[in-house]
């Protein structure tokens, strides 16, 4: 029975898992180096972690080149590793870059912030790297076992990161709430997966989809399949904080360290979306007629609750939490419009573009809020940002750019996200939904402008100056450049989003079964 090693772990497996291996090595390296560093050198951990992210990005680029070579040989989209449980297709590669960028910017934002909080520990950066590994598994997993384990790796790392400020009561409690609701939703999600396993007898997404398709032709209103769909979707909607499963988000966002709030609202959310799209587009597409009304209802509820609740918030982090819930509503509309038999439709492409631009503009806004944290000022209330124009004009103007982009004003990046979602709704004939979405976008402008109003029109409440650390400066520069450049020259990025969907799922499934 003894099998040679190369059958367990082939060279393709090695290539496809190299990005994760890099992150794991550097994460463990950070944990070890941290023990050797004197306290005043602790910030070196951040640079180690950043180097790890760069190495991982190089490994992702290697996978991308291999994909290009395979395409030249007419085998596009056939990158399957670990016995079919990992598919590093273009969809996954796109998300890999997104996660790495989000993690890098969040680390840049954290260096100074953790020093102010007196919590500068190597574990923080190691946990960020480990959570990125989990996200990569969520984006590239083609097997429910890998998807579930990756989801939990990301979630567990994030729970600890949220509670990282142990002196701060808010941070502890946020971690507790997030963990309880996260574990609860994982339980529901796993129950749904078990039902799908029971229907199909396989843990592979492609196999499950094929069996579901046949099963569904035979009995179209099978209650077990519908129950499985409901429980799985509930778990997924919890993870992306869609209404009515959003209660954890504002509390967790408010209590978490500000840089982690930014990280959660972009990278963790993008990973949730990667998982959701993987499952809905690659496994559940036979059930689309059943889940469509549900998604329409959830997206409308999400838009309504997110936008209305954001109107009355006085805490910046909470306000942005509700606004991020509202953004999820727009993206869900993309799923409504996206025709799943053709994954490269405008709706899905809109979601991909949206996630990309959202990474830059939202992290930028959180970078500005991070800079408000000074010696004894927590700096996350709207009052704290008042009069920013007179203290730090550059920052105030950058914040205005990010806010306008979040509101979807052209020619900034956020406009393109909303544009494709609305376009896809009109293309697919959902005129009423498009109208509602546009109205809510106008409402969104109001609460973003409330922040701008405080920055430009009101007097500062404290005289304490705002100072920028080099890391934060770099983070602000990257996010601002990203927001403006994507807004003005969108072609490259739109092509990247289209590229990520250019392998239709049918061939991916066929590639697995050969």
């Amino acid at each position, binding site marked *: 029975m003894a099998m040679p090693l190369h059958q367990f772990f082939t060279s393709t497996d090695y290539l496809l898992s190299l990005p994760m291996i890099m992150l794991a090595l550097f994460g463990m390296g950070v944990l070890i180096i941290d023990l050797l560093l004197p306290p005043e050198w602790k910030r070196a951990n951040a640079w180690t972690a950043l180097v790890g992210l760069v190495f991982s990005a190089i490994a992702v680029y290697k996978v991308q080149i291999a994909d290009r070579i395979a395409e030249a040989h007419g085998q596009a989209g056939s990158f399957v590793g670990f016995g079919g449980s990992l598919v590093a297709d273009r969809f996954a590669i796109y998300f890999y870059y997104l996660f790495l960028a989000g993690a890098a910017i969040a680390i840049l934002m954290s260096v100074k912030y953790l020093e102010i909080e007196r919590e500068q520990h190597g574990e923080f950066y190691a946990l960020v790297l480990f959570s990125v590994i989990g996200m990569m598994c969520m984006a590239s997993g083609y097997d429910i076992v890998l998807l579930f*384990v990756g989801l939990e790796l990301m979630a567990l790392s994030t729970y600890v990161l949220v509670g990282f400020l142990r002196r701060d009561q808010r941070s502890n409690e946020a971690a507790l709430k997030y963990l309880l609701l996260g574990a*609860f939703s994982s*339980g529901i999600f796993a129950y749904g997966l078990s039902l799908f396993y*029971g229907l199909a007898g396989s*843990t592979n997404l492609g196999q499950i989809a094929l069996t579901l398709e046949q099963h569904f032709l035979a009995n179209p209103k099978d209650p077990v399949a519908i129950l499985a769909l409901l429980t799985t979707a509930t778990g997924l909607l919890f993870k992306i904080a869609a209404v009515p499963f959003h209660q954890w988000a504002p509390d967790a966002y408010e209590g978490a360290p500000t840089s982690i709030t930014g990280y959660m609202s972009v990278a963790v959310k993008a990973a949730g979306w990667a998982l959701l799209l993987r499952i809905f587009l690659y496994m559940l597409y036979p059930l689309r007629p059943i889940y469509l009304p549900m998604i329409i209802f959830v997206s409308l509820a999400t838009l309504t609750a997110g936008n209305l609740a954001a109107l009355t918030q006085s805490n910046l982090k909470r306000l942005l939490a509700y606004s991020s819930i509202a953004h999820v509503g727009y993206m869900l509309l993309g799923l409504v419009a996206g025709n799943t038999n053709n994954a490269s439709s405008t709706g899905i492409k809109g979601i991909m573009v949206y996630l990309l631009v959202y990474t830059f503009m939202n992290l930028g806004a959180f970078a500005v809020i991070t800079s408000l944290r000074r010696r004894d000022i927590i700096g996350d209330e709207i009052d704290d940002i008042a009069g920013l124009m007179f203290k730090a004009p550059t920052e105030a103007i950058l914040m205005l750019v990010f806010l306008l982009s979040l509101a979807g004003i052209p020619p900034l990046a956020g406009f393109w996200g909303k544009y494709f979602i609305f376009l896809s709704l009109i293309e697919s004939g959902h005129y009423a939904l498009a109208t509602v979405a546009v109205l809510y976008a106008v409402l969104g402008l109001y609460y973003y402008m409330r922040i701008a109003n405080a920055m430009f029109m009101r007097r500062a409440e404290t005289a304490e100056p705002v100072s920028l650390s080099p890391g934060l400066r770099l983070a602000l520069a990257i996010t601002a450049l990203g927001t403006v450049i994507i807004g003005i020259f969108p072609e490259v990025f739109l092509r990247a989003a289209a590229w990520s969907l250019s392998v239709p799922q049918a061939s991916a499934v066929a590639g697995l079964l050969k």
Partner: protein
Amino acid sequence: MVPISYYLVLSAILFACGVLGFLIKRNVITIFMSIELMLNAVNLSFVAFASYWQALSGQVFVFFVMVVAAAEAAVGLAIIIAVFRTRQTLNPDRVNLLKL
């Protein structure tokens, strides 16, 4: 011979018990135990399906669910200790668990 659906019914009832405990209990540790109950219901239905399909992949999934449960319990209980240290209570109403 016990039909497979009996196991599924048992699993569903256990799962509902877990959800009930999660929703109504006030002590955080017991809420955690309710989550363990839910995960065990998931495990039971996986093993039942694995036996029905004569495929061991379901049992492998159970193995991973147990790893996840162990890791979640370790982190969760550590967070509970941290919260308890600052608040001296285990009642999530005090920590506003369900505040909108």
